[in-house]
């Protein structure tokens, strides 16, 4: 028995999660145990995992071989900088979500709490194993277990058939993608069918094969990450799932796909061709624009967030692609910058998106409503959730001084200094991509204002909203944790960048830590101070100073009363809550500007309608461009093949007869 290394601790934590789940399913009738003990315990494990990963991130890689797996291929585990970083992400996010879930889960229809406890923690464990796996088989097992457990979590309310449909679509896409990954491992595998990542690193795949492996991996991981055009499952599955699960999927699970692709393209395939990067960049950009536009026109709050996840994943892939481009042109410094931006955004998105999903969860519990058109004015009923949601909203709108801005800033920086690439076209295009990113960020702002304004501000659009109650204590703790994360990640960029240094060194062989740390913790200047610099601390500080100052001055200098009156609204008399902008209304300008993007069906009232009603349905065109045609092709195939089955025994005999004769003739000839 070797001494207990860090990786053993990490493994133990992951297994403790599994254990918690099993306890939960064993004592499934003891609800207090599950909600008040087990889930908080899971949160503690999350913290522990984050701590371990933090301490392991700049250590030397550690490996471990488990006694299970295939006879010739036991499970290999490996803890290096990359996996540590993502484990950190997993642990930190899981801590918040678990503690929230402790307050969130209820008895009632849907999967029983005990079983949910098992599935949820199995989900966590499998994600940890995905990040630890060091051979193809272990990775696939963990990967698919992750898909399965999350599928069962998504379909926990399987009475509703749209939820069933969502789950079905999700698992289908996930599985097809997984087969893609599997085949890519098959291509990369060492000569003697050796599926350990070590063998894949050393085994030189030649000719067309690396590209095939990369494309297969891109297909597989893209399907999981929700990259265009494989994104369709995402806006279905996220709303269907219970909110902590949506948070977990959107916040962490999508990142495991990023991790996988990073692992494959840098660690295993050594980032060979520049056009891989260009491809990633284009796909990412397309997804980002698509997601941003669609999130602005949604009427279901969780769908809105789901599309915004697509957008963020798109941004991450853009950074990823840029990193690949730089790396393939051997520009390690710039590659490091882009990679930092990418990883940083992964972390940020994990925090603010799960925060927002959890907030929708609280709203859902308080109002039983997901439809934006039926919400509003919750700021008076649930202040905690509102203000914490505001943090998430600002962060995901990419506004300073929160974390979303930092990563977008870094991304733009990495785009601005691309001149000098051997590829003339790239030199021309990349700055334009920067412009597109600016557009995307602005659209994200639009979507977030819509989300926050319609849900929390204004007048309640339904009577029942008056009974809405704020989030419980445990839920608040979870939300607070994540919100604090958003703030700190925004305020301490240098700390994070120094943290990321080992990762970038591992992947692209260079880091920013020196440039970052040379200015002290408060000033972020990745390249040099007169190149570009940003100091969130001063930023926030000055606002925090100015605001009270102004307030103090104004209210001291002019002591005037403050009267409560009915709203003026240009003197229009009867104001009802139905007169506010609905979600459709708010999205209308976008619908109008980007009309070619949408497949919409509308229903206008005519002047003579007794019950005039307006309905506008915006659909994802990819259904009609890609998925329905595929379905049609398959259907055609089935019709052809069904024709072979006539039910007549003579025909069947004829088949065997013909087969026999054909084979005989073939063998002789």
């Amino acid at each position, binding site marked *: 028995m070797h001494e207990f290394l860090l990786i053993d601790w990490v493994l133990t934590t992951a297994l403790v999660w599994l254990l918690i789940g099993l306890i939960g399913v064993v004592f499934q009738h003891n609800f207090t145990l599950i909600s008040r003990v087990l889930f908080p315990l899971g949160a503690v494990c999350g913290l522990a995992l984050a701590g371990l990963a933090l301490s392991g991130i700049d250590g030397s890689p550690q490996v471990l071989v488990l006694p299970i797996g295939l006879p010739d291929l036991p499970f290999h585990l490996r803890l290096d900088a990359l996996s540590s970083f993502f484990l950190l992400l997993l642990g930190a996010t899981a801590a918040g979500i678990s503690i929230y879930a402790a307050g969130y889960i209820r008895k009632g229809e849907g999967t029983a709490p005990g079983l949910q406890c098992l599935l949820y923690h199995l989900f966590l464990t499998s994600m940890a194993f995905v990040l630890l796996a060091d051979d193809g088989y272990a990775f696939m097992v963990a990967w698919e277990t992750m898909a399965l457990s999350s599928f069962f979590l998504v379909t926990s309310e399987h009475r509703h058939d749209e939820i069933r449909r969502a789950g079905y679509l999700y698992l289908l896409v996930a599985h097809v993608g997984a087969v893609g990954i599997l085949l890519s491992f098959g291509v990369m595998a060492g000569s003697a069918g050796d599926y350990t990542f070590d063998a894949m690193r050393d085994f030189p795949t030649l000719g067309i094969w690396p590209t095939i492996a990369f494309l297969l991996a891109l297909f597989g991981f893209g399907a999981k990450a929700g990259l265009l055009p494989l994104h369709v499952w995402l806006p279905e599955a996220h709303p269907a799932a219970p909110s902590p699960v949506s948070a977990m999927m959107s916040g962490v699970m999508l990142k495991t796909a990023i991790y996988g692709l990073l692992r494959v393209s840098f660690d295993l395939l050594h980032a060979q061709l520049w056009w891989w990067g260009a491809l990633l960049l284009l796909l990412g950009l397309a997804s980002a624009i698509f997601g941003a536009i669609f999130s602005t026109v949604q009427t279901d709050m969780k769908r809105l967030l789901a599309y915004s996840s697509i957008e963020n994943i798109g941004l991450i892939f853009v950074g990823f692609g840029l990193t690949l481009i730089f790396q393939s042109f051997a520009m390690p410094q710039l590659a490091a910058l882009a990679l930092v931006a990418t990883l940083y955004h992964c972390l940020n998105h994990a925090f603010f998106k799960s925060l927002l999903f959890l907030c929708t969860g609280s709203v859902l519990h308080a109002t039983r409503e997901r439809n934006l058109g039926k919400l509003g004015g919750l700021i008076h009923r649930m202040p905690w959730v509102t203000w914490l949601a505001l943090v998430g909203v600002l962060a995901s709108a990419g506004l300073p001084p929160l974390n979303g801005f930092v990563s977008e800033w870094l991304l733009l920086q990495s785009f601005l200094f691309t*001149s000098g690439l051997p590829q003339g076209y790239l030199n021309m295009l990349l700055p*334009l991509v920067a412009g597109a990113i*600016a557009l995307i960020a*602005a659209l994200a702002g639009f979507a977030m204002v819509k989300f926050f304004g319609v849900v929390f501000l204004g007048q309640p659009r339904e009577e029942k909203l008056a009974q809405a109650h704020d989030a419980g204590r445990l839920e608040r703790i979870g939300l607070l944790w994540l919100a604090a994360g958003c703030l700190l990640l925004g305020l301490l960029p240098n700390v994070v960048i120094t943290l990321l240094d080992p990762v970038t060194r591992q992947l692209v062989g260079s880091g920013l830590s020196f440039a970052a740390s040379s200015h002290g913790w408060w000033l972020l200047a990745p390249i040099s101070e*007169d*190149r570009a610099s940003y100091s969130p601390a001063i930023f926030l500080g000055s*606002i925090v100073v100015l605001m009270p100052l102004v307030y103090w001055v104004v209210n001291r200098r002019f002591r005037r009363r403050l009267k409560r009156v009915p709203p*003026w*609204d240009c003197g229009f008399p009867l104001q009802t809550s139905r007169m506010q902008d609905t979600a459709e209304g708010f999205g209308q300008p976008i619908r109008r500007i980007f009309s070619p993007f949408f497949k919409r069906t509308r229903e206008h009232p005519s002047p003579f309608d007794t019950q005039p009603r307006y309905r506008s349905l915006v659909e994802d065109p990819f259904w009609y461009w890609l998925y329905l045609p595929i379905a049609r092709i398959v259907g055609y195939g089935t019709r052809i093949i069904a024709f072979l089955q006539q039910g007549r025994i003579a025909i069947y005999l004829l088949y065997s007869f013909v087969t026999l004769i054909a084979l005989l003739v073939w063998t002789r000839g």
Partner: protein
Amino acid sequence: MNFYALFAQLLELAIALIMAPILNGWVNQCRAWLQNRSAPPLLQTYYTLSKLFHKDVLLAHNASSLFRAAPYLIFSCMALASAIVPTLSTELIFSPAADAIALVGLFALARVFIALAGMDVGTSFGSLGSRREMLIGFLAEPALLMVFFTVSLIAQSTSLSTIVETLAHREFVIYPSLAFAGVAFTMVSLAENARVPIDNPATHLELTMVHEAMILEYSGRHLALIEWAASLKLFAYSCLGIALFFPFGIPSAADPAALVVAAAILLVKLAMGGFVMALIETLSAKMRIFRVPEFLGTAFLLAVLAMLVHLLLETGQ
């Protein structure tokens, strides 16, 4: 940190706070002359502000704390913005704190909050205004960023001070790209400051107003702060335009005397800038809200062209 920087910073902030309303008044005056109306006094904005400050605040019943906090936040954002833009000197203590991108972020922050405030009371016009404001915002922001990118490609930096340094104190070079960028910037700043042809700060005609619609529910000191913030924004944009496209006379060396000179030059530039804006406003008519995308799209395109022109003509590729 050196005291010169601190001093310059404070001076700049002070000038911004004082001059902003006056600039606003100046523009209105010019416009009045151009439309040969009798002009309001130069300090008209100040009168309005003090009047508002002395009034009671009438707050809608369901106005939330966010609604009440917004004016202070917006005001401080704008103050910070005008402090960041290097107008008198490039030696500012805030200049490392935020580069061009961060500045855009700052404006965006203010916009988001004013839009949220507009939705808060839950009146029909408020949310309508916020919607339009966000629409204009998400179209204007990328254009503005592209303008910044062009200049930062020229200066190989996004930090405003460095940009101004490069443009002002390098031996004189003609940058064709700057011409495009300048036009784009002008269009954007018209849109951002709620000016004709995008919006009309003077009107309260329900169907056309954008900025006014959002702040309908504000009154008293809140309204005053918001108006002041608006004029600060205008000031900041003008200074930005000056700093980017007419940076001559902004001293780099750290001597107080130069500051005075710079201040004088700044005033002249502002006066001219204000006049030009008034001219534009007079010559153009307010456009339908759905023409705005085309307008700002053009701005974005110009900015892109500027960048391409820079990449084609001004770098050795």
